[in-house]
């Protein structure tokens, strides 16, 4: 039976080229976008390069303070990264984590070299940063805790910055990098992190203590992210409890404002909050919002295919009437139509996967996905079974959604009408 359905499908698909093209076009483009977007996001949230252990890291990256008068919240509030005092004096002292690191994360560094404008990324870190993120050192070593405590003018540079500043020179350890008015001595060279990394990213890394703090004493807000390393969900719960207890204690001690620090959160949650209000964020409602968006996106080609199918029902009236005459029950006809539709959408899905390979291969480096103002992530193709399964399910949903209603109408058609050429 399926062989017969398949023959009909192939014949109809090859004879109605415009219909086939329109059907496949919508599905394959949608699948292509879903594949590229989800693969790139999966790569970012799963972590690669120095972030390959991202699953074992949680982040405190946003602080919200609301001014209060006589114990009541005022309208004014501020949201920023963690202050140096908050990170250094409190969050770094969280005992339930294996390691805690504070760093600024990627920040722009612009300079002129040999008359040419250059834009690179600098990242001010502590010594623990190098234990949390797994960099590959091509030369030298990271700076130590003692060196950070002393505010030593040291730097770790990326391979590409080394090439830019020192050309083909082999050993650059001990050489000087000028950062604004400060001379930093190179202690190590690391492999460039992949552009999908969101935290372990930079060309120039130096101890955050090199720059004197300009923040007010006991300031909650500033420019730091804190990363906590753990190994189990129970440990992450303990870390969260300890962080929240610490924040509650600090909040109680300051009567001029209330303080809210989310998490520590996973990379996925961190990306979802973005620059929004962390207090308003709820993982459930965010996931639901994205789910609705994805559903609407997936529905478009399904509706397109459904409309095409409805338009073509009349064309297939004679075939359906003949099938009914020779013993097809309505259920069999519905199955046939759904089968054809699912084969069509699976074909569209397969084309979509091939297209996503091609688009990434041809445009991957020039077309980027903007994650935040500094991170333009190139499109990525990494075969991922979960993404593949999701795509397959999306194809089947397309097939069922777009075929279901037309199949019902088709199976209810009166054969006598079509056997007389549309007239009784």
């Amino acid at each position: 039976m399926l062989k017969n359905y398949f023959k009909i499908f192939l014949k109809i698909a090859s004879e109605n080229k415009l219909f086939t093209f329109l059907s496949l076009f919508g599905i394959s483009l949608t699948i292509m976008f879903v594949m590229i977007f989800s693969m790139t996001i999966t790569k970012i949230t799963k972590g690669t390069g120095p972030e390959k252990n991202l699953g074992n890291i949680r982040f405190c990256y946003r602080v919200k303070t609301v001014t209060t008068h006589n114990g009541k919240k005022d309208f004014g509030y501020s949201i920023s990264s963690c202050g140096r005092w908050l990170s250094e004096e409190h969050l770094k002292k969280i005992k339930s984590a294996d390691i805690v690191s504070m760093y600024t994360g990627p920040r722009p560094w612009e300079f002129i070299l040999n008359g040419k404008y250059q834009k690179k990324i600098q990242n001010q870190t502590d010594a623990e940063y190098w234990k949390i993120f797994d960099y590959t050192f091509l030369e030298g070593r990271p700076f130590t805790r003692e060196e950070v405590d002393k505010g030593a003018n040291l730097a770790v540079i990326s391979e590409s910055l080394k090439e830019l500043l020192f050309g083909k020179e082999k050993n650059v350890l001990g050489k000087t990098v000028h950062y604004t008015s400060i001379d930093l001595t190179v202690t190590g060279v690391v492999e460039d992190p992949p552009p999908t990394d969101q935290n372990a990213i930079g060309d120039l890394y130096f101890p955050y203590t090199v720059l004197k703090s300009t923040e007010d004493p006991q300031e909650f807000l500033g420019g730091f992210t804190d990363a906590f390393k753990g190994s189990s969900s129970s440990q992450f719960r303990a870390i969260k409890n300890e962080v929240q207890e610490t924040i509650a204690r600090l909040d109680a001690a300051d009567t001029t404002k209330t303080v809210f620090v989310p998490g520590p959160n996973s990379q996925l949650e961190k990306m979802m909050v973005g620059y929004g209000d962390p207090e308003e964020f709820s993982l459930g409602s965010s996931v639901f919002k994205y789910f609705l968006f994805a559903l609407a996106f997936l529905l478009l080609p399904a509706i397109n295919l459904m409309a095409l199918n409805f338009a073509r029902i009349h064309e297939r009236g004679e075939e359906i009437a003949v099938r009914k005459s020779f013993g097809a029950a309505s259920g069999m006809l519905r199955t046939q139509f759904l089968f054809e539709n699912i084969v069509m959408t699976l074909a569209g899905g397969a084309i979509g996967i091939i297209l996503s390979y091609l688009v990434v291969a041809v445009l991957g480096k020039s077309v980027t996905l903007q994650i935040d103002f500094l991170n333009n992530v190139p499109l990525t193709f990494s075969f991922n079974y979960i993404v593949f399964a999701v795509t397959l399910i999306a194809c089947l949903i397309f097939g069922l959604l777009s075929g279901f209603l037309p199949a019902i109408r088709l199976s209810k058609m009166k054969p006598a009408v079509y056997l007389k050429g549309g007239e009784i």
Partner: protein
Amino acid sequence: MIRLENISKIYRTKEIETLALDRINFEVKEGEFVSVMGPSGCGKSTLLNIIGLLDEPDNGTVELDSQPIKLYEDKKTARMRNQLVGFIFQSFHLIKELNVYDNVELPLIYRKTPAGERKKLVLDALERVGLSNRMYHYPSQLSGGQCQRAAIARAFAGNPRIILADEPTGNLDSKIGQEVIDILSSLNNSGTTIVMVTHDEHLAKSTHRIVRLFDGRLVG
């Protein structure tokens, strides 16, 4: 074999009602070859569609093989159409996307006949209508006579006990038309009950009985 009792059928549109069949009582015995004649629009095809369970009467009862039929029983009527009845249409109604072999195989697929037996039945049917050498041709590659022979092969491939033929020679010249009637007569001689709608008095005379319809009523 076929028994219609007090069958009426009205076609309704927004503006008008057309009485296609008016209290028809009609019986065909097993092994009979009956012609149904009458002017255009008198209800011949409607009668055939009701016998073949393709259309529903507004009143009256239909019995096939001594079983009363209710058309809302979709699976049961589909099974009866498949096992008991074979259709031949004036315009052949071969599925244009399938070749001759696949068209003839269609009722056997719905009957879930095993593949080996199916192949034998299809080849036998094509041999009997002289289309063995055209089995991989598509309908568009065949003449009108060849299409009708393929349609006849499809109708009897599964050995149904009834064949309903709606003007099977209407689109064919007289020579080819006679060939078609010869095939139908040979099927009838093997025991198949046949009801054929025709305008051709000469062909009708070669059947056992002629039934005449006029304005939805049996007149002879």
